[in-house]
């Protein structure tokens, strides 16, 4: 997950804007990799993105990116949104309804001077898995496909940074896993810096190295997930019971005949309830962090179907509870009480066993 990895500063902003109902007042560095802006609705997340993109102008402050000043109220600099080279996927995808998928993707690409084109639409179509839908009209796309087209369209301008406003919002659970996978590919294959706005902590958890926590227009915490969780006093903003592991898996058995489903998480077999999906197809699986039990020793005589051995890589100790990161081949997070943490004497590097009931794993076909 690259937690605590070295993040280079690629820019920064300090801005103030007074709205009717609240005031946005925030200062932060923009770091390489994926930064998540996390907060409840009405915390100013979208307003912040609108200011960075240039759709709105702050009352005061500055915005810098890649050594270029995009906005400065003192020196009266305000680069127009069309000249900022920022990829911005607004909520609801907003595919141009009168253009085909390929024309949507090419819309911005064509406006980029040849020498600045670093990302080619053909590669994007490949990465985002859009080969099949290129000639379709936007009305013929599923929600997940539309979202992927919008992301590809934004990336086609070879942006300095990609901003996504609630990229999973309004999508079926099954599709969410696929968007997470595509965003991970974008990060790995295109080395794209991203700002991700979300009110769901699980999305943030999987993707972001750096998190900015926003509340009522102000930054209340910044840092890695562990730092955020450990910073305390965030109960109003983060609901840890929401915390879940979302990952893509391969269907080994849907349980239609055997009565027990099995999905593969990398090399791990995880038993799950019976579900509908073709064997061999991809599925999104989710496990709530609070549904995972941690044992120090190999448990015996359990009714729970899944016992995964792993090593603790990180512990985020918050006021409410502790979040334990366990490497079982992939990272899973488990939420336990602080008392359990103390009594079990869990430390980074400890070997533990994660116990997961089959019934607490949610599975949905990925499409």
């Amino acid at each position: 997950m690259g937690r605590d990895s070295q993040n280079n500063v690629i820019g920064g902003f300090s801005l103030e804007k007074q709205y009717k109902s609240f005031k946005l007042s925030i200062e932060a560095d923009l770091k390489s990799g994926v930064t998540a802006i996390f907060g409840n609705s009405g915390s100013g997340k979208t307003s912040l993105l609108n200011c960075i993109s240039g759709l709105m102008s702050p009352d005061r402050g500055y915005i810098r990116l890649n050594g270029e000043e995009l906005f400065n109220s003192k020196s009266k600099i305000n680069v127009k949104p069309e000249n900022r080279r920022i990829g911005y996927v607004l909520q609801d995808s907003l595919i141009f309804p009168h253009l085909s998928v390929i024309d949507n993707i090419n819309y911005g690409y064509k406006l980029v001077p040849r020498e600045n084109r670093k990302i080619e639409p053909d590669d994007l179509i490949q990465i985002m898995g859009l080969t099949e839908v290129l000639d379709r009209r936007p009305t013929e796309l599923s929600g997940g496909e539309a979202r992927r087209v919008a992301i590809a369209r934004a990336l086609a301008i070879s942006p300095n940074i990609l901003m996504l406003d609630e990229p999973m919002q309004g999508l079926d659970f099954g599709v969410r896993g696929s968007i997470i996978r595509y965003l991970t590919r974008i990060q790995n294959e295109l080395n794209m810096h991203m700002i991700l706005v979300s009110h769901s902590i699980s999305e943030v958890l999987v993707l972001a190295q750096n998190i900015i926590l926003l509340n009522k227009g102000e930054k209340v915490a910044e840092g890695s997930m562990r730092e955020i969780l450990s910073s305390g006093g965030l109960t109003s903003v983060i609901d840890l019971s929401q915390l879940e592991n979302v990952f893509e898996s391969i269907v080994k058995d849907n349980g239609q005949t055997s009565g027990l489903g099995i999905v593969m998480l990398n090399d791990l077999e995880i038993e799950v309830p019976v579900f509908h999906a073709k064997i061999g197809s991809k599925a999104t699986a989710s496990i709530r962090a609070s549904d995972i039990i941690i044992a120090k020793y190999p448990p015996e005589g359990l009714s729970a179907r899944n016992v995964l051995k792993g090593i603790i890589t990180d512990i985020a100790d918050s006021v409410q509870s502790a979040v334990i990161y366990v490497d079982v081949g992939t990272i899973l997070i488990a939420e336990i009480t602080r008392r359990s943490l103390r009594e079990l004497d869990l430390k980074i590097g400890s070997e533990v066993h994660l116990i997961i009931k089959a019934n607490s794993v949610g599975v949905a076909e990925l499409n």
Partner: protein
Amino acid sequence: MYLEIILLSFQVSIVATLMNIIPAVGLGWLLVKRKTPINFLVDLIVSLPLALPPVIVGFFLLTALSNSSPLGQLSQSIFGKDIVFTWFAAAIASAVVSFPLMVRSIMVGIADVDVRLEQSAKILGAGAWRVFFTITVPLAYKGMLAGLLIGFVRAFSEFGATIVVAGSISGRTETLPVAIYGRILTGKDNEVFELIGISILFAVITLLIHNWLMNKYSYRDDRE
């Protein structure tokens, strides 16, 4: 016999509509997109011909275009002709009277386009003109076409301002409504009914086209 009248009516209303297109689209866009404190004032002035008796509009135009007016003298010096009591004066009168209807319909079309689509285009690197021509117009074309048609219909049936500023000169300024009026005065009832029939026919055809356009495939309605 009526062909001359019909052709002249078309000539006048088509020219009137063409004259209006750019100002009506431009002003409609400004009124929707640029929220300024004087918007209501501009809206009021533009809509005034809609509320006033056309004969008053005609009187103002007569004053503005007469031989002694700057515009009238300009026309004299360039073309060696007067504007008033020509088919072109009729076209101007029709244009002024139909302008508010066109602007209003175009405004509805433009306001109907999701602003965030235009914002998305902007962020993708499109300047204001490009956003307008590649996003706004293709998505608002229904309202725009409807506006043109409504304007055309209004221009076609224009009488009050036209008779004042262009008069009723057979073969030169005698449009369909003017012709009907003249024949009512002279008691040629048969011709009146024939011309009314022609008017109704044209009106029905244009309204049918208008309604068809309004109900035609809409991107937004189709999504659900």
